[in-house]
């Protein structure tokens, strides 16, 4: 009994020891972001005005404080070690020597920068705020060193909206002080000039890539994308519409930086809206490099027999479509280029016009134009009903190319109020029927 009592006592004592200093660790969650008690005393525009000589390193020696909302961060990887902020007067690139900045300074966060000791300079016309560094006797502008960032940059509240300014390309100047530089802007009605390929370099070289976008008034501007962006390998948007971007410049070259692909809202059809009275218009100006297979959004390019599709033709300023059996080794070639569906609803005397040119006339090659109302959009157009249209087709010279010849007005009145497809068919063969034909400026007019 005594033993049991002792055992019990010992167990009780051990349990008692547990009541000493419990050091179970528990931690409160720290508070979230809020605007600090700091007031900006200088606008971004005023700060930028201090930098007047391109290439100079203007170290700020007074207690300037600016404030702005982050409009671009490094989340997608298109920007690296930099942010863009803007206030109501302008935008500015901020160089910070740290990565994954978006964790601390995401888009929409208001930040305050104590500029005393920082340096404002420009890289080929684009102004940035950073530090002046001297390495091996050479001055340069660098990002604020990682562990010093919090001495200069103070984070404020989150999710501050910034409304992009809707602008036109001509409003965007390349003067260092241009108020749009470094800000979030919006352009409407743009599309990639060549709507194929990826946003940036997918090779091991990881080069940054400039892609042109263009509106229907033929204003172009560059969209510049880093190969390190997480969307670098995505195919570019194929439609047309609105783009949001940070406006930057490199010398006199205007460049846009998108934050990610959600900035590219090209959701409208690629084709430019047609002028009144025009039902179809294709001038082949958006095609890519010479001799590549022709690829026009909405058009079908089918090498139905012999698998010889139409190609891009680019010579001098001229861009058009071409097709030839020459040197293809295909004994029989039948190739179609078919327009998108054209609605003739409400047309009065609809008519088709186009131009052709021919070259290196060999044998009984033919180039004909047809119309169909029952083509199903498939890859075997010969199964549809096609009616040949009377049009003037260029006659090819025996060597070299002839001039473009107008088709004359091809009347489509018989198809009023119907939906039609215009098909261009090339018939040839190698060898013996290898004449080359070129096609340009296809139009269908209401009257």
């Amino acid at each position, binding site marked *: 009994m005594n*033993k049991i009592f*002792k*055992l019990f006592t*010992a*167990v009780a*004592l*051990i349990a008692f*020891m*547990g009541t*000493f*200093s419990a*050091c*179970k*660790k528990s*931690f*409160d*969650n*720290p508070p*979230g*972001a809020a605007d600090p008690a700091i007031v900006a005393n200088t606008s971004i525009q005023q700060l930028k005005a201090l930098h007047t000589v391109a290439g100079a390193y203007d170290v700020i020696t007074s207690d300037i404080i600016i404030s702005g909302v982050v409009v671009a961060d490094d*989340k997608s990887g298109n920007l690296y070690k930099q942010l863009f902020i803007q206030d109501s007067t302008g935008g500015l690139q901020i160089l910070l020597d*740290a*990565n*994954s*900045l978006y*964790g*601390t300074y*995401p888009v929409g*966060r208001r930040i305050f920068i104590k500029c005393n000791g920082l340096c404002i300079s420009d890289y080929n016309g684009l102004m940035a705020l950073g*530090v002046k*560094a*001297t*390495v091996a006797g050479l001055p340069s502008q*660098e990002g604020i*060193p*990682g*562990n*010093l960032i*919090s*001495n200069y940059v103070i*984070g404020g509240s*989150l999710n501050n909206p910034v409304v992009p300014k809707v602008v036109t390309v001509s409003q965007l100047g390349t003067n260092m002080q241009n108020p749009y530089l470094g800000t979030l802007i919006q352009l409407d009605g743009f599309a990639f000039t060549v709507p194929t390929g990826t946003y940036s370099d997918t090779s091991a070289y990881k080069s940054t890539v400039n892609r042109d976008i263009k509106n229907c008034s033929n204003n172009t501007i560059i969209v510049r994308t880093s190969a390190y962006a*997480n969307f*670098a*390998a995505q195919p570019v948007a194929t439609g047309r519409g609105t783009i949001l971007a940070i406006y930057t410049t490199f010398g006199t070259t205007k460049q846009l930086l998108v934050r990610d692909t959600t900035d590219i809202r090209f959701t409208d059809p690629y084709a430019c809206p047609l002028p009144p009275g025009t039902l179809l218009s294709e001038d082949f100006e958006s095609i890519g490099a010479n001799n590549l297979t022709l690829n026009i959004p909405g058009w079908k390019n089918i090498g139905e027999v012999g698998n010889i599709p139409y190609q891009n033709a680019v010579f001098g300023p001229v861009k058009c479509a071409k097709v030839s059996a020459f040197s293809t080794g295909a004994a029989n070639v039948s190739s179609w280029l078919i327009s998108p569906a054209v609605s003739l609803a409400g047309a009065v005397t609809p008519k088709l016009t186009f131009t052709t040119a021919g070259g290196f006339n060999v044998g009984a090659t033919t180039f004909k134009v047809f119309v169909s109302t029952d083509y199903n959009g498939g890859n075997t157009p010969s199964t549809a009903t096609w009616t040949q249209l009377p049009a003037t087709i260029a006659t090819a010279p025996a060597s070299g190319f002839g001039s473009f010849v107008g088709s004359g007005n091809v009347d489509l009145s018989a198809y009023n109020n119907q939906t039609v497809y215009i098909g261009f068919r090339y018939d040839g063969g190698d060898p013996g029927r290898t004449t080359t034909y070129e096609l340009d400026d296809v139009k269908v007019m209401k009257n």
Partner: protein
Amino acid sequence: MTPKPKLCLLVFVLSGFFITGAFAQVKDTLPVRDSILESLKDNLLDNIPVISIDENDGQDGSAQNISSQLSAGRDPFLNAATFKFSAVRFRIRGYDADQFGTYINGVPMENLDNGFTPFGQWGGLNDVLRNRETTIGMDPTTFAFGEMGGLTNFDTRASRQRKQTSFNYALSNRNYVHRLMLTHSTGLNKKGWAFTISGSRRWADEGFADGTYYNGWSFFGAVDKRFNDRHLLSFVAFATPTENGRQGSSVQEMIDIAGNNFYNPFWGYQNGKKRNASVAKSFQPIGILTHDWKISDKTTLVTAGSFSFGKRSLSGLDWYNAADPRPDYYRYLPSYQLDPAYAAQMWDEMKSDVNKRQINWDALYNTNYASYESVYNANGIQGNTVSGRRSHYILEDRVVKTTKYNFNSTLNSTISEHVIVSAGITYQAQVNNYYKEIDDLLGGDFYVDINQFAERDFPTNPDAGQNDINRPNRILYEGDKFGYDYDINIKKGSAWLQGVFKFRKIDVFIATENSFTNFFRKGNVRPGLFKDDSYGKSTTHSFFNSSIKGGITYKIDGRNYIFANGSYASRAPFFENAYLAPRTRDFVQGDLKSEEVGSIEAGYVMNAPKLKLRATGYYTQFKNQLNVITFYNDEFRNFVNYAISNIGRVHTGVEFGAEAKVYRGLSVNAAAAVGKYFYNTRQLATVTADNSSQLLSVNDVVYSKNFYVPTPQNAYTIGLDYRSPQFWFINVNFNFFDRMYLDFNPVRRTEAASSGVEEGSALWHDIIDQKRLDNQYTLDAFAGYSWMMNRKFKSMKKRTYLVFNVGVNNILDNRNIVSGGFEQLRFDFAEKNTNKFQDRKFFAYGINYFASIGLRF
């Protein structure tokens, strides 16, 4: 002094062939009950630094990183090696921990995955671990064939515990500050029952190093039943749930900035409270059932089985598309700045602002607060979108769940006056389950089971980033498993036989062991990058191994002995060294074969009343060793694995220990270990990254010949002991350590690392040469007093002692003792800048103490 290898082999062969008659060695292998001094020293040991050696350790079986392999008996050398040399992580004969074995009540305790002994599983149970049998080197034992370095068997059975109650409180300034310990043993009663219970709590709100803490419990229960003279059945069970915030090594630059050799990069302030990111937790209870059967007066059979299960974990930060949160990341250091003015400014800044050199928890939370994201096709369901605060930083637990069975049976029989035969069979099975678990989302709503680096590297392969394509885009909450998840399954069976032959002048023994080991990996998830090489069971790898050892002792007289032992063993590779990257796939090293170890030792022992002395020389050669080193490489932003093969090592040297009684209670002790531990082959390195399916390099030659194994090659101590007849003692020792080296990075010794650098130039030497550390010294003192209270309080019936102990280590407060360190495993191949990824070091504690007061009755 050092014999030539060929000669050694010859001696070994001779010793093998000419053993015909025989014996029992005289050296002290009898169970030893510790004196007060030893028990005090034990206490010191279980409270030595907890240091992270690399990101991946903490897998040595314990939350507590106990460096010492052995508990000393009365051998003066062992005593020194265990207690006096521990500050610099001295390893006996330079051996790895897997060369030392530990048994408790007859069952082997080592982990089958790496051969280490999980000392932490019985930490804090000092009271019940006093009965032990220790051998050093290749001496024969009565309970196992043994390892190359030595063996310890603890006998914790209730009937072997002294009948008493003891209550003890200790105060220290090391890992823990307070310890309470209570033990009660009943002794064997008339009905044949004996009980022991013991418990302790060790804790510190902050340990020696900033930001560390400790909270450990230990529980022990034992019951014995003696059925008659022949049968004793014993059961013991113990558990040590422990949690501690750890100290990490760091680079010299951070140490200089912090102005503190004990700078700890693992902690930071959260809301003004210190929080440690590296928290080790461990709870792995064990039960052992032992049957001791005295078959006859001359023969005993001890059969024991054990079962252990539980989990240990180590926490750490993980991050997704976010800046590296570790404060001593090389890009955050002043040396990364090109402009010296900013480097200087940053230095000042980091010096004056503690938050800039510690983890900024508040910033991690704020990043997660600000992160509103949508995950598409969440949980693998098309069109399912989960939106919210996606954590970019989390605290993860890297968990190892272990289940271990051991069975062991040992027969000892005295066949004649001259012959003692021992034999045993052992079966061990272990399953470890490795996975990661979300510990804390740090203010976010969820995390996603995605490998961002594979996702980034294979933008066109949507599967590549998935940690488990069976459950893609899994949304994770606290407590969820994620990342990797695999089991290892190891089984080992062995049998051994030993004959000890004793004659008047000569004792001889010979022993052999054969074992069979197999293991396989089982993947529980299917990572996108390794669809076909991860999920399910891998090939089973099997090994058959044999070992033989023998020895001879010549008894000059009853006090002077000369002995020589030799052994040759083949050993299956450890699981840990076999798999290239077990977290993601089941590839093994190309040349997966058993390693071979040959060793000889010879020495002189003197056991005179006034002088105890032992001097031993040894020569050991390891062949075909394998190793896998894993570390975090931020270039890959993932774990990179170096699978090293063809490791050959030579360990040779002399050990000396002596204790001489000088005058009355005064004695002098001295010990020295003078050795040379070096690699004697060119190793081959195959490099893989967890997030890349490619072999980054295959069998790169590492020019590692003659590099040193990083433990002090030389260690010396000399001291004085005084034992008063008035029941007190004092001991002072001065210790000196020489020829210590930094662990080296194999890729820095490849052709690629030095190509283009002029041979013999300063840079070339800087890249290639192994770094030698400064010589070090420490001064330690111990004192104790045992007061028998009955002398004062005559009314007390029982003999009651009040015991005071105090030990002070490193009295001279030498704060520059680099107790270990390693070159970072990254190397700047492009610029050959050896300072870019600086060496990481850790330091032995400055002056530190351990004082206790105990009541025994």
